[in-house]
């Protein structure tokens, strides 16, 4: 039997599968909704800049001043408001004293508090340290860290300003930038591979694309074949004089088309809603998605052969899908995981697909930069298919 007939049979089967898919309105709606949910959910649950914003905080200014001057708290508030207005980290509510703040925290109206004690100005003017008290909500450690970070930024800037003034007072000839260099001789500047602002979406979008496309093949293939087996229609194909491979091939084609469609939806969504851009070649992105599919086909077929009915198939899928989702660095960087988890991660093809895709989409990498990932995906795919074909043939004619 020629390869040509086999391919043409595969196309017939793929066409038939897609036809069934497009006639299923509900399924089609879900097909489009799933990536939308996935993107919006994951995108909005995880903070996009690692820092919280608009945290409600109560402020009690109890500064009694020194003589008539409240210069200490005034400077603090000016700098504090200046920084806060630009970052939008905190939302300030005024309170009278520390007990009111504690009440407000317990009621849940605010998530933390700042108290400027009555001796703030007098301490500074008399040459002592000026202390600001933070009231923390122990049930939410992340918030107190945020407030602390905000305040230390404020004090850093106040300290720098003060030191600059003192340097200039000592030597009026020094200009402002030199005085800054004297106070803070070192500085950090970060430089990305590509320019522009990046958010968490840029990190997860490639991963989710890779995941959706590959999962749709890995889960779709066993589900589709075991469904047909159960309904009995698979027999109709099996009694026809066609190569058994064209059944897998056709099913894979249909599932790939479905997966790619979802991939495109994700890409469109992420660029329209979340401002994700592809910095590398779009063609390479799709090439990578296809390669990802290829690497998963064998696995899908092996699972198909093991799954006797649809229910078992679905359960098998779920068991494999979840670890793969979380261990492949789609949502969290792999480097965060302990070493043993990292080693599991390093054998999952999805890890390589999402890493390569990320390199291309975010960093604008070309083929030379992702040869390792490409090799792994190709080898994994070939090995799995080599295992899958005989297993499938046996399983089909038990």
């Amino acid at each position, binding site marked *: 039997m020629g390869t040509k007939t086999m391919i043409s049979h595969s196309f017939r089967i793929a066409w038939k599968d897609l036809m069934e898919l497009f006639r299923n309105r509900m399924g089609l709606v879900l097909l489009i909704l799933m990536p939308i949910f996935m993107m919006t959910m994951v995108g909005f649950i995880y903070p996009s800049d690692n820092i919280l914003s608009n945290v409600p905080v109560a402020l009690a200014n109890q500064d009694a001043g020194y003589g008539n001057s409240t210069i200490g708290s005034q400077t603090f508030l000016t700098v504090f408001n200046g920084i806060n207005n630009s970052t939008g980290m905190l939302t300030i509510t005024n309170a009278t004293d520390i007990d009111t703040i504690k009440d407000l925290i317990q009621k849940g109206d605010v998530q933390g508090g700042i108290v400027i004690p009555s001796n703030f100005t007098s301490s500074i003017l008399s040459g002592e340290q000026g202390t600001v008290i933070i009231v923390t909500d122990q049930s939410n450690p992340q918030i107190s860290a945020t407030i602390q970070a905000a305040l230390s930024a404020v004090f850093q800037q106040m300290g720098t300003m003060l030191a600059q003034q003192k340097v200039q007072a000592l030597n009026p000839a020094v200009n402002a930038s030199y005085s800054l260099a004297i106070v803070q001789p070192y500085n950090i500047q970060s430089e990305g591979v590509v320019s522009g602002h990046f958010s968490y979406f840029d990190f997860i979008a490639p991963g989710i694309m890779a995941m959706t496309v590959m999962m749709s093949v890995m889960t779709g293939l066993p589900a589709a074949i075991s469904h047909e087996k159960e309904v009995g229609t698979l027999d109709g194909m*099996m009694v026809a004089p066609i190569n058994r491979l064209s059944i897998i091939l056709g099913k894979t084609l249909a599932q790939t088309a479905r997966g790619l469609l979802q991939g495109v939806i994700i890409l469109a969504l992420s660029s329209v809603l979340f401002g994700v851009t592809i910095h590398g070649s779009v063609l390479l992105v799709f090439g990578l998605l296809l390669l990802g599919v290829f690497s998963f086909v064998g696995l899908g077929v092996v699972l198909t052969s093991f799954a006797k009915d649809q229910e078992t198939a679905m359960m098998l899928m779920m068991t494999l899908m979840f670890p793969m989702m979380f261990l492949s660095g789609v949502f969290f960087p792999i480097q965060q995981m302990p070493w043993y988890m990292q080693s599991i991660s390093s054998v999952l093809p999805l890890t390589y697909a999402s890493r390569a895709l990320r390199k291309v989409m975010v960093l604008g990498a070309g083929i030379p930069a992702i040869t390792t990932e490409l090799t792994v995906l190709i080898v994994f795919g070939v090995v799995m298919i080599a295992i899958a074909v005989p297993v499938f043939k046996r399983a089909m004619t038990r």
Partner: protein
Amino acid sequence: MIEVRDLTKKFNGFTAVDHVTFDVKNSEVFGLLGPNGAGKTTIIRMLSTLTRPTEGTARIGGYDIVKGDNQVRKLIGLVSEKMIMYDRLTAKENLRFFGKLYNIPKTLLNQRIDELLELVQLTKWKDSKVGTFSTGMRQRMNVIRALLNMPKVLFLDEPTLGLDPQSTVEVREFIKKINKENKTTIILTTHMMNEADLLCDRIGIIDHGKIDTLDTSTNLKKLVSGDDTTVLKLEIPNLTKKMFTAMQALDCVKSVSQENASHIKIHATGDEAFDTIIDAVRAEKAKINSVENLQPTLEDVFLYITGREVRDKADNKIPVRQHGPFRQKRRIR
């Protein structure tokens, strides 16, 4: 046309088909008759290359079902117990899809699809989705689907299962027509005696994976009746256990079975059987409402051969509808 030799299938130690041997002649209608679970479907699945035999061989049109499976597939058509149809595709789309798998040229295929749809009076619904069809319509579709490649051998697995009487008659007529007009060799399985009697040239009675007896319907019946067998059906309103045992004790009586509270069926041999039985019944002070002298049916044959009634087992497992979202559970084949 078909030669089956010692065909055996075991599933995890359970022997579903046990060294079955038979031949089917060209353009013959061959019936496999037996209760559900007897192994009929497994035989069909092995012959149609869907299941690999554990032991033994079979040849169809000269090709081995394992080594020459693809050659065999070109010769056969399968009407499975389950509907081989995609609900979301129309009648025509379904037929076209399966037709393409047989590499039938487009114009020829379209022509054949039209003919087949016309043949089973479904032309009107050719562009409707199969999911909207009634069970009878679906089964007619199921049958013509198997005829797309003009098979030399047609396998029919319980072709009238779950159909209403009218559809049953239609499908049976259609099967006869295919056999007569196309000279198609047909192997059909059924657990219905009258169906086997009506359609089959020869019948193999199968139970527990073995073919017990194989012959024409007429010869099978002779097995039971011999020349001097009498089958009597008596209606005795005041039937007692004692009468029953008295009946069984008679020398000429071979078996007595109770059909319901007042009816018994007696198989007996010998010229004097009729008189002897009636006398015996009278002696027990039985009131006889009616006596029927019955011709043996295939059911009697089955009872005679396997020692139990086919319906006992069959009725317990009458399969549910074949379509809809909740399908029949898999059963051991």
